[in-house]
């Protein structure tokens, strides 16, 4: 093992020890600790935990590379993955918090007083979170594997063991505070290299203000090479695909159960609103930096790699050619490297930047630890969600409503360990590339849940049959479109990653039509829906609104 691997390994092990330490300190003692951290997390820290929960291995490692390769078309990911927080914070989170349950399936089951709806929602939650976690585990496997020169599969197994330990010990309470720590590590690791890169190339340490000129310059370089300009819109796909992808990512973000459940951990609707605002601020720090990474790395590649004699490439390229993430060919046989002869894997951008900017071993190790933090923090949140669907929604609410708190806690822990192992086994040989798997999870989440949650919160006339029809129809249409488009059949030029548009539309129509065709729900359920319009202190009952001013105590 060389010196660099050793430094990276020590940094990663230190962060692992920190995470396990935090979860031992914040051990879950009752189910309310385990699922919603006793609803006592302050909004600022919850915002930070949402940031960790949200930003995955794909955001950390892959997104900058996606923007670099796709140019303007890659910006759909930047806008979509942040814009979802508008929908979530304005339309869903505060109301779901006032309803006051442990999980998303529990809201759906209780709001419509329907156990079939609860079961469908629980199964859909498990499917969505499972798709998503496979991406995280294979992401962490790639990082560990590359660092220690192990096969990616050993990397996956190491990641799995660490997550299983700290998630099952701490539950949501432990996961919340590890996510806060993971956010701090990942954002530091993400921003340091880009600040130095900006300083070296432009003399200004604020990459967000300086990379603009490079975007324009890249356009000029592309034009000279006869490529379409870097910033030209809809180069790789049609406008309809860009808008459909943007929509799918936004709606999926707002409907991902592992994100929604983070809003259950605060005290009130007001705290939920502030959580959303803090969360997006913390998330934006990374999302605003990704296009800067993209512009600087592309500039370095265009000016220092492309057009150079093949035997005189910069030193940092060699290590990446060896890993297969950078491939060069000499098709024109003139000894010079042309853009067409270069194959760049998306994951290289963030991982190679510290080496390009010559930042030394500590920063390279820090970026590796940051990538692990991004994968683990998201995986931790997902595991809580998967296990709560099994242990809370299916085991406790459907099968054993009389189970004691102790038994429920044990069931939750067993579910976490079991689902970690299952996800780990699948991640050893993941189907498709990471980004694609995750893009599907967004389409599935949006198509299955968004209209049901949105109308469930805002429309009192919605019925259980409507909810069931919407979820099943939305899930079916989304899956169907993904498979059709993979087979080459597309509508309006929209590809598999934009499938959410069709799923959401089908879901929305089914909910409205089926609800109107079935008898109106009981008055009590309708009153509960109206009650969500007001803050906690105001209660809606029998057409009247009461304010609790503490006068009857």
């Amino acid at each position, binding site marked *: 093992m060389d010196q660099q691997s050793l430094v990276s390994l020590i940094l990663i092990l230190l962060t692992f020890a920190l995470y396990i330490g935090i979860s031992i300190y914040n051990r879950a003692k009752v189910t309310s600790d385990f699922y919603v951290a006793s609803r006592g997390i302050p909004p600022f820290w919850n915002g930070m935990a949402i940031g960790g929960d949200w930003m995955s291995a794909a955001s950390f490692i892959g997104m900058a590379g996606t923007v670099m390769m796709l140019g303007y078309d890659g910006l759909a990911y930047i806008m979509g993955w942040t*814009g979802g*927080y508008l929908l979530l914070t304005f339309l869903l989170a505060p109301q779901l918090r006032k309803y006051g349950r442990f999980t998303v399936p529990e809201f759906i089951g209780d709001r419509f007083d329907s156990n079939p709806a609860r079961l469908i929602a629980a199964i859909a939650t498990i499917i969505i979170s499972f798709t998503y976690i496979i991406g995280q585990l294979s992401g962490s496997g790639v990082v560990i594997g590359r660092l220690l020169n192990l096969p990616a599969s050993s990397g996956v197994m190491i990641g799995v063991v660490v997550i299983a330990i700290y998630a099952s010990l701490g539950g949501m309470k432990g996961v919340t505070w590890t996510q806060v720590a993971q956010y701090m590590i990942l954002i530091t690791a993400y921003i340091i290299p880009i600040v130095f890169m900006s300083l070296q190339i432009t003399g200004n340490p604020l990459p967000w203000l300086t990379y603009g*000129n490079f975007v324009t310059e890249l356009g000029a370089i592309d034009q000279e090479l006869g490529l379409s300009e870097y910033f030209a819109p809809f180069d790789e796909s049609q406008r309809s695909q860009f808008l459909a992808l943007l929509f799918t990512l936004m709606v999926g973000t707002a409907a991902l159960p592992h994100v929604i459940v983070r809003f259950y951990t605060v005290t009130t609707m007001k705290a939920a*609103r502030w959580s959303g605002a803090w969360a*997006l*601020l913390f998330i934006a720090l990374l999302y605003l930096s990704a296009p800067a990474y993209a512009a600087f790395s592309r500039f370095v590649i265009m000016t220092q790699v492309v057009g150079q004699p093949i035997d005189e490439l910069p030193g940092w390229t060699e290590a990446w050619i060896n890993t297969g993430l950078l491939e060069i060919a000499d098709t024109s046989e003139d000894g010079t490297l042309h853009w067409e002869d270069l194959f760049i894997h998306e994951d290289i951008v963030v991982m190679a930047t510290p080496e390009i900017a010559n930042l030394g071993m500590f920063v390279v190790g820090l970026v590796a630890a940051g990538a692990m933090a991004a994968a683990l923090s998201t995986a931790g949140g997902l595991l809580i969600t998967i296990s709560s669907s099994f242990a809370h929604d299916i085991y406790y609410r459907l099968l054993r409503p009389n189970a004691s708190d102790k038994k429920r806690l044990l069931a939750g822990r067993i579910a976490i360990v079991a689902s970690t192992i299952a996800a780990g086994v699948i991640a050893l040989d993941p189907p498709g590339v990471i980004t694609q798997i995750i893009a599907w999870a967004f389409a599935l989440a949006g198509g299955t849940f968004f209209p049901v949650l949105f109308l469930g919160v805002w429309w009192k006339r919605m019925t259980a049959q409507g909810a069931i029809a919407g979820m099943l129809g939305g899930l079916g249409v989304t899956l169907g479109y993904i498979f059709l488009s993979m087979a080459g059949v597309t509508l309006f030029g929209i590809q598999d990653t934009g499938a959410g548009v069709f799923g959401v539309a089908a879901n929305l129509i089914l909910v409205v039509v089926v609800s109107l065709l079935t008898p109106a729900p009981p008055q009590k359920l309708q009153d509960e829906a109206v009650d969500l319009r007001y*803050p*906690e202190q105001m209660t809606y009952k029998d057409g009247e609104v009461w304010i609790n*001013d503490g006068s009857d105590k």
Partner: protein
Amino acid sequence: MRKIDKATADKYFRIRTTMIIVFLLIGFSVSYGVAFFAESINASGAMILGMPAHYYMGAQGAVVTFVVLLFLNAIISDYVDKKFGIDEKQNVQISGGASDH
């Protein structure tokens, strides 16, 4: 517990809903709106911070707008709550009591 005028409660709901609609319209126009017209903005040659305007909006402008909207929503909602006599301490107590499902 004290009964309040239904009209007052409706007014609260109407103000909050109007805010949400306005914020979402702004949020959608800086993202979907700009993306929809990206080709003509690119052709017009408009620049922000040294890069083409449509690229700037996708890479920074939309995200910064989203963050500002969320903080405005949190601040203005607190103000509205206060105007309607909502006391956050009471909210905490009430929701705390209802959390053990």
